């Protein structure tokens, strides 16, 4: 028996390490489907991930891939893209990886409009290390490092941040929007410059347990209840425990880094 996505998956690495009910599988499926829909040559795709649960995704997609240091997927991917611009370089990471330890690289890659697709799986907690507060943890939630409820660590709004830094494409979905997510990734595969998708995910084993959220089906139900798809500018793309605004907030075609670099090289040769 073969699954239609088998050709995209490194089957010898299965089963995944992810817990039952984890949102990462939905994201992996969306990436694989988007690659097939966009008819991308898998020999020309590199998936780069950092450390964390989402970081394991590079093991499972059957392309060239790299599982690199915590927070450093974006600069590694930048090196790959600059060295071989014909490759489609995709970065996947968790909110801790991309927004905390790797936050500086995120804003600078967006500032450069570097030709990368970055998919940030936001489960609002450090899952792999057992449930510590993340830069995306909503106010009021319980984590192992905010055992009395989080009132001190205000969460980041990644959409606003990356849009302000100058990305070509900025979207937010949840794992309760698998089709929209797939289409969004497909749209990114047809664009240049810096493309960023935040995927609000669920972590039933850690986040769900610490906050008594009732298991995977209920957490998906809650995601569906609190999320609303809206066509608004990025500054109105609110995210909190009560409300998650989803949609595509930036979609422009400013010249990406690679095209500019090509012109820059011509300048160098003229002088």
């Amino acid at each position, binding site marked *: 028996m073969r699954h239609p996505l088998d050709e995209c998956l490194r089957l010898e690495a299965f089963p995944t390490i992810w817990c039952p009910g984890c949102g990462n599988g939905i994201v992996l499926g969306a990436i694989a489907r988007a690659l097939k829909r966009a008819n991308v040559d898998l020999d020309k795709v590199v998936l780069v991930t950092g450390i964390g649960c989402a970081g394991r995704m590079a093991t499972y997609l059957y392309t060239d891939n790299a*599982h690199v240091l915590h927070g450093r997927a974006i600069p*590694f*991917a930048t090196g790959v893209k600059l*060295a071989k611009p014909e490759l489609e370089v995709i970065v996947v990471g968790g909110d801790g990886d991309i927004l905390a330890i790797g936050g500086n690289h995120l804003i600078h890659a967006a500032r450069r409009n570097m030709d990368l697709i970055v998919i940030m799986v936001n489960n609002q907690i450090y899952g792999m290390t057992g449930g510590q507060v993340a830069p995306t943890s909503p106010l009021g939630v319980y984590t192992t490092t905010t055992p009395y409820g989080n009132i001190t660590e205000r969460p980041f709004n990644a959409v606003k941040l990356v849009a302000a830094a100058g990305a070509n494409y900025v979207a937010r979905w949840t794992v309760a929007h698998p089709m929209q997510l797939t289409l969004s990734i497909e749209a990114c595969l047809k664009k240049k410059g810096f493309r960023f998708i935040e995927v609000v995910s669920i972590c039933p084993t850690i986040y769900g347990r610490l906050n008594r959220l009732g298991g995977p089906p209920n957490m998906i139900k809650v995601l569906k209840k609190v999320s609303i798809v809206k066509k608004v500018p990025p500054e109105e793309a609110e995210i909190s425990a009560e409300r998650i605004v989803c949609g595509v907030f930036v979609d422009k075609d400013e010249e990406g880094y690679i095209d500019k670099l090509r012109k820059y090289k011509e300048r160098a040769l003229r002088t």
Partner: protein
Amino acid sequence: MSRRVEFVHGDYACAMAAIDAGCRFFAGYPITPSTEIAEYMARELPKVGGVFIQFEDELGSIMAVIGASWAGLKAMTATSGPGICLMAEAIGFAAMTETPCVIVDVQRAGPATGAATRPWQGDLQQVKWLSSGDYEIIALYPWSVQETYSLTIDAFNLAEIYRVPVFLLLDAVIGHMREKLVIPPKSQIKIVNRKKPKGSPSEDSRKTFKPYAPDPETLVPPMACFGEGWRTRCETSAHDERGLPADNRPDVHGALVKRLCDKIRKNRDKIVKWDSAFSESDLDYLVVSVGFMARICKAAISNLREEGLKIGLFRPITVWPFPDKELREISNRVSKKIFVIEMNYGQVYREVTHICRNVELIPWLSYEPPTPHDIESLIGERI
């Protein structure tokens, strides 16, 4: 093309050699006294089809270098001790993923911010013990602008042969000192490129392809790069020969760590470089010194020999692997004492005490370099 004569400082000699060695990617962050290397690369790389990028920090720079290497380019960065600190984790990553890359450390006086433009031989041990776990690296230490050129070529070749990060340790004195550089004709520069997997990638050959299966002779795996169709894996976690995570397989992990070390240790005879002067016959005294300090010592030793002292010089050129066998062989002919003279508080000394007896450290703890006469006095006081 015939040979070319230049009058440049060591930083430029290094950058020129890098391009001649085939380096086509540079990522870096400005830091004195290494910045001239980045500036030269920014000017020259675009003209030869290469890429220069200034990063937001050293953590990003070294990761981009590693990424570019996996995409098939020869890649380097240049920094100084504080930047090396920030690259520590990534050097372990490069060792673990067996990524050919060159890291130039133009050393400045430390610890911490220290003194930006001042020389200090303070990073010898740092580059060896930088990251967590067990692994080996190679570090080369030139003593002149000319040797900076030739050792930079060697650094790229060694990185490609052994799939390992290679450090070039420059003294600030060499980095910023202008002297004559003779660039040999291209035909006389030996360039080595990484070995590729045998055959070509196909649906079937990919299934059996193991990106970390070593050549049994050298212990180095041939390198498949991104975009070549092998669907290869660059894996930071402990991995098996397929490149799949093996964090629950202690035997696989142990064998990997052993090989990462052994591919350098077992090939050390092919890697180690050293130099000696006045050491052909039996000696009463031997000086061990590296980089520009060895050069000052050589002048001092020459003077002392004219006064009748039986004294010689031993200079490690690869500080890692350290030329221990070679030093032991010479030290057996030394009847009285071995002096280690260095601009730090005993980093080469630490190695020499593991190899020889009757060793005395003569540290030069000032960033104003000594004159040969200073060295003669320091030796004179001790004999």
